[in-house]
């Protein structure tokens, strides 16, 4: 366990510039929204909009982070892979460091939402808000994690191709595999459409900007969660994780 913890600490330092970039970038956008908000008189709404954008970016945070970290390692693969730890632990160290930074980033979004929530004319009615909240958070996190491992898997596929073919064709072939994966996931999604939890949890959604300039009102949003979807997503994550480690161990060369 200790070597892995030390490796994770190294990963945190290696990936720190990516974290810093995401924080500075999001702060820049935040300032922009804030200034625009002051000028138009919608400061809190501007902050809320920033939060929505940041939440969308956060969907792909681990893709961004793993892309940075793995590509930083590309120059020194002989250092990274010359290690007695199993490959899955090498990848997990990167992933855990990415998760750590992702949660810090997410925390800043939550703070902004918390500050601006009470100042925006925004309301949401739910039958069972706790259930909706927990399920949404679970969906959100699973989506982020599967994106991260999906990217890692495709990166290892790309790296295994470049020893045989030109990098450009490796990239094209990796995109083809990505398309195939999308098609397979879409095709198999029907297999996981079982275990319906509850639908129509959100019964009302209202967003009103002041002085009658902006108004959004949804009656009932159909929100159906399936246990099968969770299981499917977890199986997909497992496939990406095992696949990445296997390819990195046996097919990727320095």
């Amino acid at each position, binding site marked *: 366990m200790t070597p892995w913890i*030390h490796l994770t600490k190294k990963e945190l330092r290696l990936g720190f510039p990516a974290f810093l970039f995401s924080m500075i970038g999001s702060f820049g956008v935040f300032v922009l929204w804030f200034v625009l908000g002051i000028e138009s008189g919608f400061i809190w709404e501007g902050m809320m909009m920033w939060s929505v954008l940041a939440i969308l970016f956060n969907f792909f945070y681990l893709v961004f982070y793993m892309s940075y970290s793995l590509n930083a390692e590309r120059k*020194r693969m002989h*250092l990274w892979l*010359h290690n007695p730890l199993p490959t899955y632990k090498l990848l997990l160290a990167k992933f855990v460091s990415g998760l750590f930074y992702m949660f810090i980033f997410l925390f800043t979004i939550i703070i902004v939402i918390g500050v601006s929530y009470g100042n925006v004319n925004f309301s949401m009615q739910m039958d069972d808000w706790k259930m909706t909240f927990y399920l949404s958070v679970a969906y959100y996190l699973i989506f982020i994690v599967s994106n991260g491992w999906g990217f890692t898997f495709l990166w290892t596929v790309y790296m295994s191709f470049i020893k045989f073919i030109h990098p450009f064709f490796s990239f094209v072939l990796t995109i083809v595999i990505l398309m195939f994966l999308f098609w397979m996931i879409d095709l198999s999604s029907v297999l996981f459409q079982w275990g319906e939890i509850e639908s129509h949890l959100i019964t009302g959604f209202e967003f009103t900007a002041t002085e009658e300039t902006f108004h959004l009102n949804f009656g009932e949003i159909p929100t159906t969660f399936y246990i099968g979807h969770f299981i499917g997503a977890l199986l997909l994550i497992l496939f990406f994780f095992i696949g990445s480690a296997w390819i990195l161990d046996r097919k990727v060369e320095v």
Partner: protein
Amino acid sequence: MIELRQVTKRYRRKIALNEVNITLTPRKIYGLVGENGSGKSTMLKLIAGLIYPTRGEVLVDGNRVDRRVSSVVSFLSELDEYYSFFNVEQTIAFYHSQFPDFDLEKANEMVKFMKLDRKAKLKELSKGNRGRLKLVLSLSRNAPIILMDEPLSGLDPMVRNSIVKGLISFIDIDKQLVLITTHEIQEIENILDEVIAIKDGKIIGRKVVEQLREQENVGIVDWLTSIYE
């Protein structure tokens, strides 16, 4: 013991190693010599489990090599790449945390011997001092096999001299097998037990250095020149 059996390594269209058969036994220092692109680095990476043979097999102590052979093989790469955010001390601590056979006491002794500043950031070190640090990291492991790819490449004579002295002082020849590739043959000639010549991915000669000197009265460079022509 290292064995390469009928090993061929191909990179796209280029054959880097061609049906190589060789056995290296412990408690010896081997020099692997040859021109650029002859297959020296490929051979070392195959033994280190960082690449895989296209055909044939590479065995270390009778086991087929994979990436995790790094638990018994210490590999020094020719590349000048490091985790530049670490300083010398942190780099050593990181290696100590990753390799159970890393001898911290030996590393500290070597740092002193090489006159390295423990607090210096790697990105601030001169190329010579980075070369010295690579040697510290590689030789501080009590691994039975040490592979060194061009440890003297691009370094000035003073640094090369200190590295050769480091090799003499810190290799445990009673326990370790050392395989060194280099173009600076004359500088390590005195520490080699055997020399292996490689050309176009094939082993073209192998000699015991002492025999070469005493029986044939030639140095490694002369011998290499004669078989290369």
